[in-house]
């Protein structure tokens, strides 16, 4: 983990400002990402947490400009080391992908091409972006495979993806993602398809790679208990909004948004004595049919009148770099501001 002071004067590596990505369908406009802002500093890990359809994956695809048909960035800026990726040309973005930003997906088998050997696939970005010869690239691949703890990497160069186990495939996909020493790695649910023990080994490996390379990581997951101690910052998504953002420790121990608080309460923990779990009523919203006002309002125990009408809550900045989108906190803040001179 890196101290705040060390980067206090540095500009963030990635700065996402008021990003709006909408999907235009025949049934209407789906606001998949609606006014999301966050920053990632060099060497830092950001956990993007949310359930299915909360907008976390669309946020990542927006950063990489890999949006599916019908989806478009409507407004906002995505600054990566001085380039605005929203307005950058396609050829600029192509140079960024794989070189400055690496990506690991949930399903490594789908991410790897079945007809090419491991060696070819991991070497390809090195040849493309760093203009290495294939011979030199393959030598570097052996080092990379060793870094991700693949046993006998020289032999594995000639293996095909189907010959590897699930955990091994995810390591190979990671080796390809970090090959060009990207400043940022986006890992979208990288452990969901893995076994419990394999999942843990992979997380430990990611942290080790981060320490070795100094890259920043955006770790996307639906499982808030997984991000545990591994993230520096947490961003909690709900219904296309980033509802809570801040240092991991503070968000987990004193959640500010009612959704974060209720979610943390509802997850069983090892070694606890609770006989009954507090649960959140209702279901996560369908982005195509969002309720009026705050997307969490129908499930929120503390909802006010203002939550049910009008606009989604605005972003409220709190101390320690935290931010929350909740009318309750907004009202508390107003009262506090009115009370003090």
């Amino acid at each position: 983990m890196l101290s705040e002071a060390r980067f206090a004067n540095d500009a963030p590596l990635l700065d996402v400002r008021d990003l709006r990505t909408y999907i235009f369908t025949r049934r209407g406009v789906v606001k998949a990402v609606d006014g999301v802002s966050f920053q990632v500093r060099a060497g830092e890990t950001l956990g993007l947490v949310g359930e299915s359809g909360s907008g976390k994956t669309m946020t990542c695809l927006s950063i990489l400009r890999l949006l599916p048909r019908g989806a478009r960035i409507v407004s906002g800026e995505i600054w990566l080391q001085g380039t605005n990726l929203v307005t950058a040309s396609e050829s600029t973005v192509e140079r960024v992908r794989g070189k400055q930003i690496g990506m690991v997906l949930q399903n490594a088998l789908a991410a790897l091409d079945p007809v090419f050997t491991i060696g070819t696939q991991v070497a390809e970005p090195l040849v493309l972006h760093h203009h290495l010869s294939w011979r030199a690239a393959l030598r570097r691949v052996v080092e990379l495979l060793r870094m991700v703890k693949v046993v006998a990497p020289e032999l594995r160069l000639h293996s095909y993806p189907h010959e590897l186990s699930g955990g091994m495939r995810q390591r190979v996909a990671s080796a390809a993602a970090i090959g060009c020493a990207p400043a940022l790695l986006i890992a979208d649910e990288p452990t969901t398809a893995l076994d419990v023990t394999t999942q843990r080994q992979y997380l430990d490996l990611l942290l080790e790679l981060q320490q070795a390379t100094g890259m920043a990581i955006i770790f996307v997951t639906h499982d808030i208990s997984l991000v545990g101690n591994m993230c520096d910052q947490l961003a909690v998504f709900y219904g296309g909004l980033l509802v809570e953002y801040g240092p991991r420790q503070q968000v987990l121990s004193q959640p500010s948004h009612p959704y974060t608080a209720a979610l943390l309460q509802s997850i069983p923990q090892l070694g606890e004595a609770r006989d009954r779990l507090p649960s959140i009523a209702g279901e996560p919203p369908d982005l195509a049919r969002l309720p009026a006002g705050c997307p969490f309002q129908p499930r929120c125990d503390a909802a006010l009148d203002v939550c049910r009408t009008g606009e989604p809550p605005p972003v409220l900045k709190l101390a320690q770099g935290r931010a929350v989108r909740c009318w309750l906190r907004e009202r508390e803040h107003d009262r506090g501001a009115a009370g003090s001179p």
Partner: protein
Amino acid sequence: MTEALLEVRDLVKHFPIRRGVLGGKQIGTVKAVDGVSFAIQPGETFAIVGESGCGKTTLANLILSLMPPTRGDILLRGQPISSLSREALMLYRRSVAGVFQDPYGALNPRMRIGDAVTEPMAIHGYPRDTRQQRLREVLRGVGLSADSAQRFPHEFSGGQRQRIGIARALVLQPPLVILDEPVSSLDVSIRSQILNLLKDLQAEFGIAYLLISHDLATVEHMSDRIGVMYLGRLVEIGHAKALCRRPRHPYTATMLAAATPPGRTPWALPIVGEVPHGLDIPSGCAFHPRCPYAQPTCRTSTPALATVDAQCQVACHLYTDSTPRAACPPR
């Protein structure tokens, strides 16, 4: 001790792997379930935890009598099901119901919910008015409105579909329900609703559950006793809290270490290697290539499940010299 509701005795299920035209030549065997024994008492929750490929779903399918075992037997209230006539087997199937992982795949998309939920009653020859009355009861019981009966599966969300699956399992009032990963395909914020519902139904009707899952925290929360399965065998059986506080088998300790978020591991137990393929199970104790305590004996002889104390049975050579030990210090 009261008579066990369900007893599984040395259950074995091997799948032959054939190759060639007409599947003539057998080239190997997947030992999905390889000598599993345990008992479930009325009204208790017994959990089987294990990673993918350990045979836990095959075990569920065997108990649901969806496939015949290769060897061994399943006894319901002392009656072995292998000895049952066709009619008696129908009675067995009324007593053991299942709730499955994927609530989307478990429902026929062209069948109205009312028909889907009461289908087991129709099969067992209940008259229409009894079915309708029971339908209203179970829908209320699982928290669905009465008008759900007229609707189709696609009109429901994942959590609601899992409620429909539970209603269908309960419609014949079985004493035992097999829950195969009942919440793992659901969104995180609705899992606790379903877990609470299952606990409420158990308290109300005294149902016994066989819960099958890979998630130790959920299993500890839900169960009275836990059996840990690795490559077709039970390696440890114990009381839920005791097993999670003081794991005996090194594999149980590994699972626990993996279930604790990174940076919070209470002990440093290395997780070595990956689960081998079911076609290629290591000799002796199947866990020995990944075990930090492996000794030469572990490579050659398979440890049997032995009683360590009143609450715990372990299949591990570390415990055969009858000295009580723990694979890791208590938390």
